[in-house]
């Protein structure tokens, strides 16, 4: 009875971004004969999986009222490690890549927790510094995967469905359940909505925020490994500007920058909107240059619409 409604508990109304996704879907289906095919749809899912995975973690961090600008750099480092360490052992390479993301996320979170320095500044520094670490490790060289099992994994499918798409969707489902069904998820909203009150309510604010930074670090690293496997290579500049795309996706999905409000379902919509736009405009042979302008314009329009629609709700009590 309440099962479907309960599944979207707390954020029961249909998010505007999904209306936008459906509109885009119909628009491109009409405009391009190639758009509406199974191959293309799964293509979109594969293309969005990298940004999508990071966006899952970023949603948690942004609901917390923080931000992580270092995800692109963490992705680059983990991709380089995953390919670069394969000479020793592939398992070790992948583990090292994922651990690097977890450690850097933990470092970001720990610094934010202990020093009280704004997350924007901490992760801005990390964004520069981790990029420096990548160049230090790679010596400005690109790495190519010699291990074919690794390179094949990124393009493999289970039945007709690409593995990367499955991984992304499963992670999205897990993170959705964590956000809506667990105390960690509840605390995430509480901390973002009112940090002082959540300290009074006994939430260990510092640790809690650190865990969310670890989550986003892990997802950035996972995205790096999968991207490297998809390309069969890693370059030192991999992941540059990804933080912009990820934040764009999360904001499009309705998560508030000020914290306390957001959802994985919305983020999924935001990621898909960007993916469909890029794919659809590609199929319509719109030059890549225009796509940048259109995305910027859409992001600002969404902000304006959101401001107009949700102006009264800002005064309501949240959660």
């Amino acid at each position, binding site marked *: 009875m309440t099962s479907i409604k309960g599944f979207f508990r707390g954020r029961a109304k249909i998010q505007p971004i999904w209306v936008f996704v459906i509109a885009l879907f119909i628009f491109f289906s009409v405009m391009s004969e190639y758009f509406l095919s199974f191959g293309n749809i799964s293509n979109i899912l594969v293309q969005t999986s990298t940004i999508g995975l990071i966006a899952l973690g970023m949603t948690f961090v942004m609901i*917390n*009222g*923080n*931000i992580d600008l270092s995800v692109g750099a963490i992705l680059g480092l983990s991709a380089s490690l995953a390919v670069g360490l394969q000479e020793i052992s592939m398992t070790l390479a992948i583990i090292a890549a994922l651990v690097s993301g977890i450690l850097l996320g933990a470092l970001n979170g720990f*610094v*934010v*927790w*202990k*020093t*009280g*320095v*704004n*997350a*924007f*500044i*901490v992760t*801005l*520094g*990390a*964004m*520069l*510094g*981790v*990029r*420096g*670490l990548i*160049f*230090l490790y790679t010596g400005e060289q690109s790495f190519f995967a010699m291990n074919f099992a690794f390179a094949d994994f990124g393009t493999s499918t289970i039945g007709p469905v690409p593995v990367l798409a499955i991984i992304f969707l499963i992670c999205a489902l897990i993170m959705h359940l964590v956000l809506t069904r667990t105390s960690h998820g509840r605390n995430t909203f509480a901390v973002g909505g009112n*940090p*002082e009150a959540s*300290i009074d309510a006994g939430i*260990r*604010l*510092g*640790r809690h*925020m650190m865990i969310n930074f670890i989550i986003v670090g892990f997802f950035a690293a996972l995205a790096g490994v999968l991207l490297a496997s998809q390309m069969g290579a890693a370059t030192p500049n991999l992941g540059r500007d990804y933080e*912009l795309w990820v*934040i*764009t996706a999360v*904001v499009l999905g309705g998560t508030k*920058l*000020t*914290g306390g409000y957001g959802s994985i379902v919305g983020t999924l919509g935001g990621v898909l909107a960007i993916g469909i736009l890029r794919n659809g405009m590609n199929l319509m042979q719109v*030059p*890549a*240059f*225009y*796509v*940048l*302008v*259109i*995305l*910027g*314009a859409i*992001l*600002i329009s969404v*902000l*304006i619409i959101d*401001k107009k629609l949700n102006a009264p709700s800002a005064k309501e009590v949240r959660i």
Partner: protein
Amino acid sequence: MASTEQTKVGVPSGKLSKAGVLSFLSAQGILIFFLIGMFVFSFFSEQFLSQSNIMTVVRQASIIGIIAVGVTVVIIGGNLDLSVGSMLSFSTVLVVDLHDKIGPTNAILLMFALTLMIGAVNGFLIGFLRLNSLIVTLAMLSAIQGFVLIYSGGQNVDIANQENTWFAFFGRGFVGGIAVPVLMFGLLAIVIQVVMSYTGYGRRIFAVGGNPMAAVYSGIRKNWCVFSTYLISAFCVACAALVLGSRVMGSQNNVGQGYELLVLAGIILGGTSLLGGAGSIWKTVIGVLILGFIQNGLLLMGYPYYIQWIVTWVIIILAVWLDLANKRKRLFTSHS
């Protein structure tokens, strides 16, 4: 965004008491840090403190410095500007491309007009529609980059006749032995510092950044204040584009990529709080110079250039942390 610490501006007392000296020292902490850093670097490299090296570093830092002066005003007003890097690409490509087509004077005028227009768009969206500045300027970053690529067709632009044009003055010229970029940097910094400290306009920007509600209740037209900070930022970017285009006599279409981060790093090193309502142009100048000297010192010591990013990472966090710790009188946060 998560930090809720109160920022207090250290007010220097008139008498030279012990507390006064201490508060002066803590207020100028970044300057002391800078001097110690210079001292350490001079041990490792003999050329470091030579006059020509110092002039070179200041000249190289002046482009980032000119932009940082403008962005500091935006940040004092309580907002952010991440679009300055893309704007720098836009303005540089524009002025270099138009130089051959409509002459240097017209090119410069048109470039300033169009750059200020972009600033006005930013200012309108953030000042009047009150959208979040982080996201708006992030969106503008991508949109302006798109415009640059459309305009240039993805090609880099060059000035054909590089020998016989007075356009070279802005990037390569000297006035009284001082390089023009340094002169522009210094002049802009002084003028804007004076405006921010000694005029009613400057006080209003501080008020709007510090406590927007109180500012509105005391009759300050907040929308116009925020709007104007983005015009100042755009004007500074246009000046930087003039210097950059004239120095290189050409432009890549992504020349400004990443500048917004270096600019922010310089401002943060200078000790301007991202929360708004506090900060000074003078400290931004010091912060930008620290970045320049770190880069130069590490290069002279023989390290690859990307080591500076790692060092910058550590220094940014240390600088902001110690500043915060000083204000709250304890090193670590109290929450668990």
